[in-house]
């Protein structure tokens, strides 16, 4: 059988870096082909090449036996290649229907939407069970719905090869299941699906074959059937994985952070009367599908947005809304966006090592900054958190995501804060850095630090937390201790199907 896509010796170099080196492998019609690898292994570059956004120096790509013109998104589209990007390419003010038909063949830009085209979209929606509202602006839709619109867009254009870049990162488990059902149906129709993911259980669940990339090269292509996670992990990282740090039972101490009936934020995602308490030596995990109030909770704690109602207490004392910057400077915070919040991208690690504490001893003496102490601090962080490469003179933006995250965690924990707010601490971070950060969080817990963990990753939530809260539409939809957790009820609560308040 002719492969749907065949990479032949594809090489893409960037100055000082080989992103893809001699990549060759086929993807067949009627196959779900997973592509896995650490950050920087070359997955995105390869998918960029296939969809025409990146032009390789060497090699070729054949699509159904015909050589694909490289470096041309238009040629890729014509060849039937469709990309569903991780960050959706939708116009927020247009409806789902308008987004799907925008620029599609048979639809002119300023012409009214044709009934035939609209009927075809509705047919596709019914056929594949891709439930979503087509008549409201996509800005009002959930991420899951947006993703279904992206997929409908590809199907409407009759893409024969679908590239899905981390499609499950933002979905609730039940949504993931229905996405997989759609993928299986597409497979039955002979479409070729390239599926990029960091979540290995999903690979086992849905893929036929897996191609592992490491440092720009194909490490191997294996059948997914009968494959176990351990083997796959060792292929990905090129060695035996270290054991995970165990979670040990521990009796929590005094309350450190108390949030009482907090309401904050406007729009549909506002937080409504949320209460929680984090004690010494305890990790409280807040989960939920993205956009259900997590961001508002963090913003209210940090003082980015005002509170409509409710109280925040730190070490028994109320935190006045106008005094949140002072509160912020007594705690540690691993922010959601490391590049735009947590780091000064164009400054070196020495400046970054003291961000937020530069005006107090030991980094300040009298009126002056103490460069030598700042340098020592940067050194300590780089050493204890294994930041690579260990070069203090490089600007922060030169480091990979995993190393940036290590550095931030190192800085925030270096002052031994009584409370740590960790927001998506391992998002977009590879296996080893994730393991490392998890180990550090557990270490801090053992030391008695109170930790509030906000994460969309349910595995992370369940392995680290003493207590779990699920937010849905700004309210606590499910709450339970680690021991009493009912996974079924928790999963239902992610989509608002659970009304139970507290449990154990």
């Amino acid at each position, binding site marked *: 059988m002719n492969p749907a896509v065949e990479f032949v010796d594809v090489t893409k170099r960037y100055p000082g870096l080989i992103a893809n080196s001699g990549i060759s492998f086929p993807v067949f019609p009627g196959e779900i082909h997973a592509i896995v690898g650490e950050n920087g292994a070359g997955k995105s570059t390869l998918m960029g090449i296939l969809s025409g956004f990146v032009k390789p120096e060497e090699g070729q790509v054949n699509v159904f036996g015909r050589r694909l013109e490289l470096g041309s998104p238009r040629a890729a589209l014509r060849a039937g290649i469709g990309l569903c990007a991780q960050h959706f390419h939708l116009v927020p003010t247009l409806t789902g229907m308008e987004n799907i038909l925008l620029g599609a063949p048979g639809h002119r830009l300023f012409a009214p939407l044709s009934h035939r085209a609209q009927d075809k979209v509705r047919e596709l929606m019914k056929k594949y069970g891709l439930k979503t509202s087509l008549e409201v602006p996509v800005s009002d839709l959930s991420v899951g719905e947006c993703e279904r619109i992206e997929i409908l867009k590809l199907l409407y254009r009759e893409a024969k090869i679908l590239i899905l870049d981390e499609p499950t990162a933002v979905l609730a488990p039940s949504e993931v299941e229905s996405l997989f059902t759609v993928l299986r149906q597409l497979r039955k129709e002979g479409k070729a699906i390239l599926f990029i993911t960091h979540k290995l259980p999903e690979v086992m669940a849905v893929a036929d074959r897996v191609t592992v990339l490491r440092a720009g090269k194909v490490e191997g292509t294996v059948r997914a059937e009968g494959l176990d996670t351990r083997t796959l992990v060792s292929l990905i990282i090129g060695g035996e994985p270290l054991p995970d740090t165990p979670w040990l039972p521990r009796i929590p101490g005094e309350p450190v952070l108390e949030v009482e009936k907090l309401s904050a934020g406007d729009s549909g995602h506002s937080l409504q009367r949320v209460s929680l308490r984090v004690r010494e030596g305890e990790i409280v995990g807040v989960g939920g599908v993205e956009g259900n109030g997590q961001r508002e909770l963090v913003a209210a704690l940090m003082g980015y947005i005002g509170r409509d109602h409710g109280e925040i207490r730190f070490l028994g004392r109320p935190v006045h809304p106008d005094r949140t*910057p002072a509160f912020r400077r007594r705690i540690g915070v691993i922010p959601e966006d490391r590049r735009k*919040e947590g780091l000064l991208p164009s400054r070196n690690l020495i400046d970054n090592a003291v961000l937020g504490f530069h005006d107090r001893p030991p980094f300040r003496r009298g009126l002056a900054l103490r460069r030598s102490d700042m340098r020592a601090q940067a050194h300590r962080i780089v050493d204890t958190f294994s930041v690579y490469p260990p070069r203090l003179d490089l600007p922060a933006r030169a480091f990979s995501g995993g190393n940036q995250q290590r550095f931030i965690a190192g800085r925030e924990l270096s002052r031994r804060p009584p409370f740590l707010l960790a927001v998506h601490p391992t998002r977009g971070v590879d296996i080893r850095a994730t393991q490392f950060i998890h180990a550090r969080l557990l270490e801090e817990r053992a030391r008695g630090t109170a930790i509030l963990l906000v994460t969309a990753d349910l595995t992370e939530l369940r392995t680290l937390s003493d207590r779990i809260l699920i937010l849905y539409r700004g309210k606590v939809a499910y709450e339970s201790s680690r021991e009493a957790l009912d996974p079924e009820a928790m999963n239902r609560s992610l989509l608002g199907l659970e009304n139970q308040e507290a449990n154990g």
Partner: protein
Amino acid sequence: MSDREITNLRLQAFALSTLQTVGPVAASIALGLGLAGLLVALLGASPTQFFTTLWAGTLGSTYGFSQVLFKATPLIFTGLAVALAFQARLFNIGAEGQMVIGGLAMAWAGASFPGLPFPLGVIEALAFGALAGGLWGAIPGLLKARTGAHEVIVTIMLNFVALALANYLLANHLALPETVRSAEVTAGATLPRFSDFWSALRGSPLNLALLLGVAAAILLELWSNRTPVGFSLRVLGEGPKQARYAGLPLARLTVFAMTASGALAALAGSNFILGYKHYYEEGFSAGAGFQGIAVALLARNRPIWIVPSAIFFGLLSYGGLVVNSIVPRELIDLLEAVILLFFIVFDRMLRTLPDRLLLLRARAPETP
């Protein structure tokens, strides 16, 4: 990585940063001068004569050079004002207005306390000037911090307000009868001229304001690199999100940066008011507030480089007078603009290209 490799990398980084710093400046000046020669020839004059006259009249003679420095002095202050605000990513387009308001206050204060001996009179006049300019600069700072009003719009508008206000105050309260200038400042508030000590400079208006400017540049350089507040301002300049995340007082820093910037712009008036004519008159700023933007741009907002940058612009503006007999003075204005445009283009090109090379080399595997 071996020590040798690290040393090599450091050397490369140093060579690169030197190239990036000096390259665009040198290239744009060279190209600008080349183009000027061409234009002179097109106008039917001799380029050789143009350049020799320009050289002899400016850098080639002590007197000429002192005139260049005199022209450069206010530009040092306004350049520093723009650069300081820009460290916090605030575009102060209002240095002109701050200089006008500050200058008026300085002239008034310099003339109003005849009892003060030198240098107390000078200090007092400078303080009043800086205070007025600082308050004028604080307005856009406050509006930005409170309401988010963009400082570019506000400072531009306030330039007109400042000019109108100064004219009104001058005409109705401060001008000497039958004149359009303020009273002369007292002897204690006068900055001595260099020609008082050095006869070669006879007739040159160059005065001690130059030294004040250089001192301000050095102090500001140290301050912005070595103090916590300077650091905070640069964090704010890097990104308001980072500053907010770090728990820095954004509103206070914004107001502070604009106030300090306004005060510096006001001090630019000292060259004319305390050192040259000893009074305020309309147009005394000669556009120094606006030229300060170009000065800061060419110096890339580094306080210490403001001094050479201001001297260069001083050279151009005095050079215009020198060559006026050969070609129209506007040719020099054109030259100024062309050099800036070249600089912006080269700076961009050099900054994005090799920087990436260097960084990517460091982007090695995830862990050792």
